[in-house]
């Protein structure tokens, strides 16, 4: 009798990071950014890492927008002493520059993580950490849901624009608080519906069953994870020096 082999996912080619590496690196970078603040060169290096990751993941547009703004802010910061702006303008520019320099590296990394991590890989990685299922399921839903919320919200914006309900129009100023209702209620409606569908889809795939679920996601630390580890160690040493 012929034997059928179990399905094996195709072998991965090229750059790949374990979800655990991504999460640990995120925690490391944010902690580093909190305690190190006067080192502009380090900010730049920290920004280059997620930028490279985004480019490797072929998110060229995101990389260009975030990277471009970051570079602009960096240039502005370096040339800050060279010209004098009026007081209020100066404050706004200082704030904007500071926000971009401090937050964009973290945004880029977060964006990369959300876009590049498949849900099954994430779940498999969390199971290796022995995190209880009561946390894994909601967290993976959060991951999957944040982009969906963005899409739904954009669709609602389009629909509202057709009726002239948006920030700054005449209708808006007649009832500014109503905009909250007009935006959030439709969003919640579609969210409830999507949530029900998601539950149904998950249940048919055996989520919440009694048996322990297996996975075909093929995760594990590789050479690339080692690179990230070395980079983190180097940053840590640099920060401590």
């Amino acid at each position: 009798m012929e034997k059928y082999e179990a399905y094996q996912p195709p072998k991965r080619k090229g750059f790949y990071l374990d979800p655990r590496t991504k999460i640990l690196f995120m925690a490391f970078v944010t902690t580093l950014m909190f305690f190190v603040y006067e080192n502009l060169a380090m900010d730049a290096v920290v920004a280059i890492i997620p930028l490279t990751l985004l480019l490797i993941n072929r998110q060229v547009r995101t990389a260009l927008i975030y990277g471009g703004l970051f570079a602009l802010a960096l240039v502005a910061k370096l040339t800050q002493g060279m010209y004098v702006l009026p007081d209020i303008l100066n404050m706004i520019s200082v704030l904007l520059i500071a926000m971009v320099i401090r937050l964009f590296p973290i945004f880029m990394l977060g964006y990369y993580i959300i876009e590049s991590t498949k849900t099954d890989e994430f779940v498999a990685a969390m199971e290796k950490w022995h995190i209880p299922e009561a946390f894994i399921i909601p967290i993976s839903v959060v991951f999957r849901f944040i982009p969906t919320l963005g899409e739904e919200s954009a669709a609602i914006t389009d629909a509202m624009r057709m009726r002239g309900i948006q920030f700054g129009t005449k209708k808006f100023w007649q009832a500014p608080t109503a905009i909250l209702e007009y935006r959030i209620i439709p969003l919640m409606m579609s969210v409830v519906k999507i949530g029900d569908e998601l539950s149904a889809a998950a249940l048919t795939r055996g989520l919440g069953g009694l048996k322990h679920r297996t996975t075909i996601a093929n995760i594990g630390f590789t050479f690339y994870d080692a690179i990230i580890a070395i980079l983190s160690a180097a940053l840590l040493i640099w920060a401590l020096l």
Partner: protein
Amino acid sequence: MESKKLKAKDLINVGIYTAIYIVIFFVVGMLNAIPVLYPFLYILIPLISGIPFMLFLTKTDKFGMVTIMSIICGVFWFLMGYTWTAIVGYVVFGIIADLVLRAGKYKSFKIDVIGFWLFSCGMIGCQAPMWVMADTYMAGIEQSMGAQYASELARYMPSWMGIAAIAIIFVGALLGSLLGHKMLKKHFERAGIV
């Protein structure tokens, strides 16, 4: 009586409403770029997140859902750079809120208000580095955001604000849950969702 164990559907619901809460927090939290508006966050965030939270409570009937939600929020804000105080704040207040809500069986409106208030208090943890690690934090802010911002921040967010926030959040949570309750009645019950 259904079993007390959380089912897959409950966990997915937790995930969905946590995502909404995080997004609202994130968008509204951007206002802190202007120091004067900082204390208003304590009103605005509970006010806006009241609608999803009240809807969330209609789907909750077991202990643990609110706790899980707050732990995930805490870990998320930790990863976004709010340091460990965010985790402490959310976990402590989340568990207390869940206990209170359970006392009202997640259905009594008055107790829902108190529970939502306690849950929202978790966000004080996100601002706590300002007071707990004042030196490091303020030095960092001064370096990156400029001395002007730092001094204004210190003016509008003195350390007693951490205590006052609890009262401010109560106002926000009350308004938020009233709004949420009204919206539930006006839209969701009519549509048959709740």
